[in-house]
């Protein structure tokens, strides 16, 4: 009868583990508490079904275990019972699916007032781009990626000149403002994953994917890559700082635009070219 006892212990142990263990999701920092709620509904329904099925099994194993002279009951089918069970199951499934699809609809409906922030992933670092004062991001193309233009921003697009470029540094977001995260990759698949935001999405070279959220509390949150992107996958980290309005403005003021960066690079290249020429002359003289 060990098996009947173990089946009961599996149920009791699983529920105890769920309730008592310290392992649970990290506190949320975005508007997606809807997702958490749907997850909780799912936990309740599936937990009840799991307990019911396994406990019923344990009872059967104990009650109908083989003893001398036992005979099994011969009952090939019971359509009524099957019908009932199908209906109850369908209701349970609908109770999870309907709120799920409702929340999904919200998830994919980006509010009109969301500001755009672009995340550009590469092996194995995060870069970001914010629209400048015109509120629009310039176009981009992986074909334009070069040492001078690591994010592939179109230099001929006037909308891109005032874009703020954050290369391999932290992203800041203002609290309580909806943002649309535009996701782009210059090499392989990546996935922009901040556990506290709940939302995540893959980035695909050649496409721009997106999701949206509203950060709901200030703080520093770690960015991880959640789509296998090569041997550096687990080292591909970054930070998102959710700031108050004032702090955000201060940070924004310290950032450089695409035009400024390009100019700085051209200047320094001119310098190094000049230096290179001198060295070459020096070599020739020797």
């Amino acid at each position: 009868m060990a098996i009947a006892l173990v089946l009961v212990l599996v149920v009791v142990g699983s529920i105890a583990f769920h309730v008592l263990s310290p392992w649970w999701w990290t506190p949320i920092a975005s508007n997606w508490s809807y997702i958490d709620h749907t997850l909780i509904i799912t936990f309740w329904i599936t937990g009840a079904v799991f307990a019911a099925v396994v406990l019923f099994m344990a009872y059967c194993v104990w009650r109908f275990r083989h003893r001398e002279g036992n005979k099994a009951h011969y009952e090939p089918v019971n359509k009524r019972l099957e019908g009932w069970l199908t209906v109850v199951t369908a209701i349970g499934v609908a109770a999870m699916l309907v709120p799920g699809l409702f929340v999904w609809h919200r998830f994919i409906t980006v509010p009109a007032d969301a500001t755009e922030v672009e995340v550009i992933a590469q092996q194995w670092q995060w870069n970001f781009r914010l629209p400048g004062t015109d509120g629009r991001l310039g176009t981009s193309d992986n074909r334009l990626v070069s040492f001078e233009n690591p994010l592939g921003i179109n230099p001929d697009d006037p909308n891109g000149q005032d874009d703020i470029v954050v290369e391999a540094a932290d992203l800041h977001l203002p609290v309580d403002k909806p943002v649309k995260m535009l996701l782009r990759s210059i090499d392989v698949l990546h996935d922009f994953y901040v556990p506290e935001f709940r939302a995540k999405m893959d980035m695909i070279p050649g496409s721009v994917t997106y999701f949206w959220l509203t950060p709901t509390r200030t703080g520093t949150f770690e960015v991880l890559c959640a789509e296998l992107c090569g041997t550096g996958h687990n080292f591909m980290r970054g930070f998102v700082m959710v700031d108050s309005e004032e702090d955000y403005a201060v940070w924004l003021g310290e950032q450089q635009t695409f035009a400024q960066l390009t100019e700085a690079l051209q200047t320094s290249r001119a310098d190094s070219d000049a230096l290179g020429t001198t060295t070459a002359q020096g070599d020739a003289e020797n």
Partner: protein
Amino acid sequence: MVDITPGPVDAVPPAEVPEVELYHPHSWWTKYVFSQDAKVIAIQYSGTAMAIGLVALVLSWLMRLQLGFPGTFDFITPEAYYQFITMHGMIMVIYLLTALFLGGFGNYLIPLMVGARDMVFPYVNMLSYWIYLLAVLVLVASFFAPGGPTGAGWTLYPPQAILSGTPGGQDWGIILMLVSLILFIIGFTMGGLNYVVTVLQGRTRGMTLMRLPLTVWGIFTATVMALLAFPALFVACVMMLFDRVLGTSFFMPALVEMGEQLSYGGGSPILFQHLFWFFGHPEVYIVALPAFGIVSDLISTHARKNIFGYRMMVWAIVAIGALSFVVWAHHMYVSGMHPYFGFFFATTTLIIAIPTAIKVYNWVLTLWRGDIHLTIPMLFALAFIVTFVNGGLTGLFLGNVVVDVPLSDTMFVVAHFHMVMGVAPILVIFGAIYHWYPKITGRMLNEVMGQFHFWVTFVGAYAIFFPMHYVGLVGVPRRYPEIGDTAFIPDSVHDLNAFITIAALIVGFAQMVFLFNLFWSLKFGREAGGNPWRATTLEWQTSETPPAHGNFGKELPVVYRWAYDYNVPGANEDFLAQNDPGAAKAAQPA
């Protein structure tokens, strides 16, 4: 009472094809090596699958050692870790589970259970095995190739799969992987056509489709699905091979690798994902449906009771098989595909829960008012229900598109699919081996070793994968060789990881006992006799055990009833074999 076993018992329809002369082997080589006997091929398939499965088991130990004790083992570099997980996954899903269920159990059981002398195309059946073996050898070769095997993850997503940032991407690893898969699919197709045609054309007199044991229904439906799903993987592999070797751009957009512009352009990485999962999701059920079928027969036989709702069980298998072709993109909710797909695929995915739940209900209702013999096969069947229900229910989290968003790509997913398509089907495989080993060898497997194997495997596997869900819920991503210092992950998660690793090592050790038992009982096992479980299906009614070439004696059996006449009211015995004409009228639940 309603009509369960269609057609009146005394109306035995003729077999659909006349008997053909079998190929008779002339030498040891053609009898045991290049054999055309489905039973020998089955053992070849099973032996090869278990041998390569052992490699996958060792790989799982290595990856668990790294996860449980990061930084302790210098030889497990990130490159090596990715190679371990990739090869572990690919071997388990394709080369072990698919090969063992279809090539192993399919070959052994289909002809015997439908009352055929052999598969319909024995020569092609033999070729199927040898091409499978070649596929396995090519796979193994990648371990010894320069750069080692591919570390692209078992999903092989481009672009990274064929680029230098991934182990084997610019070496031989990915090429050998793709070639091996292509060979596997060619070999499988040869075997698969055989299984389907044998079920449809090779049944003996009286064996109507609705009298087939559910084992045959499960393997048959899974094979039909595999024949339809594998071509998608075949195409994806060929195209990726072209991208890698010839420089085409089927899956490769314009991209920059480590600061260098590559010449690719115009391809679609997400197209590969659609092709992969068009195969990959049915693949889950290709592994699950044979397990569903087999476990139904184990439960019925060892509970001495008819399977509850046979007709519904058959239709559920067929419905699940069909539905599984329209749910594939639930693996891609966060892939960046069009967001409206989420509504469609979440709905189809959750609908599949209904026929699946019906199967679970019918298994436990078969136990209700049974005469349950707690044999080792029965214990494994019970453990299967627990793990399958657990893993199936977590599928409702991941299938429900918005709930999947925070959980996808975390350890929750790893825990889910291991529970539902790793642990659960493998428990059925064990139960099935304990159940049919007496027929295959004539001897019983040792009971004491069997009990040890069962308890450690069941409790241990649950202890590995149940807590792992919570590692994912905390937010630990999958495919991380180590988490490192991360603020949102409490230190206790590392302890839990160490616990899981220790459990995995113990469960792995128990499998060595099982393997030892397989060999030990061959010589020292108790003599089984022809029908030790007093089961109804035809394989237990053969004149010889193990069954000779040609399976049955001079005459093929004639089938008078379904496979589940246990404890029929009025019958003398507690079972009536399918080919037992006696007391037939009283037995029919007309």
